[in-house]
C-alpha cells in the first residue's frame, strides 16, 4: 500500500514537472514573438532606409557598417530573438537550428520588398529587384 502511494507521488511530481516546463516553454515563445512583433515597424523602417538587410544566415545584418548605434542595437535584439525562436522551432519540429534558419531565409527573402537588401550566395548585398530575372 505504502509502495503504491510513493508510485503516485513520483508520477504526480513528473506530471507537474512536465506541465511547468511546457508552460514556461510556450510562454517564452510567446514573449519572443511579441518582442519581434513590437520591433517589426522599426526593422521595416531600417530596411526601407537601406541600413539593414536579410542575411544569408537567416538573420538580419547591417548593410551600411556606418549605421547609427540604435540600428545596430535593433539588429542585435532582432537576432537574439530569432536565434531563440529558431531553437524552439527546431525542438518542436525535430529539425536542426540551421535548417530553421535556412527556412527563415527563404521566408524573409520572399517577403522582402524589391528595394530591400538581401545577401546573395557570395554574401554580397544586393537589392532584391537587381537579382536574377
Amino acid at each position: 500500500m505504502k509502495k503504491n502511494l510513493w508510485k503516485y507521488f513520483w508520477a504526480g511530481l513528473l506530471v507537474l514537472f512536465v506541465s511547468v516546463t511546457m508552460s514556461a516553454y510556450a510562454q517564452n515563445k510567446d514573449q519572443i514573438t511579441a518582442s519581434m512583433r513590437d520591433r517589426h515597424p522599426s526593422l521595416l523602417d531600417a530596411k526601407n532606409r537601406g541600413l539593414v538587410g536579410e542575411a544569408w544566415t537567416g538573420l538580419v545584418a547591417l548593410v551600411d557598417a556606418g549605421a547609427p548605434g540604435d540600428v545596430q542595437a535593433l539588429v542585435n535584439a532582432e537576432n537574439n530573438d530569432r536565434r531563440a525562436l529558431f531553437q524552439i522551432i527546431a525542438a518542436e519540429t525535430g529539425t536542426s537550428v540551421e535548417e530553421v534558419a535556412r527556412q527563415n531565409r527563404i521566408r524573409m527573402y520572399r517577403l522582402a520588398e524589391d528595394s530591400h537588401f538581401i545577401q546573395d550566395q557570395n554574401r554580397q548585398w544586393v537589392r532584391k529587384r537587381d537579382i536574377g530575372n
Partner: protein
Amino acid sequence: MRKFIVPGITGMLLMFLSACTQHHVTADTTHRVEIAPIHVTVDINLKVQRALDDALSFQGDMSDIFTEEELKMLQ
C-alpha cells in the same frame, strides 16, 4: 537421422536470419522549388515553414510568401 539434424538446424537459422530484414519508411515533408528571383534551388520544409508562420504571421501574408501550389501543400 542425426546426420540431418545439424544441417537442418543451420538451414532453419539461416532462414530466420534472412527473414529479419528492416524496413525504414520515412515521410518527407520537403519539396524542391525554384525561388525567384534568386536562381537557387531550395528545399521548402513545410513543417518548419508552418511553424515559422504560426509564430511570425504578423510579418506578412502566406500568399505573399508561397505560390498557390505551395499553399495547397501547406494546408
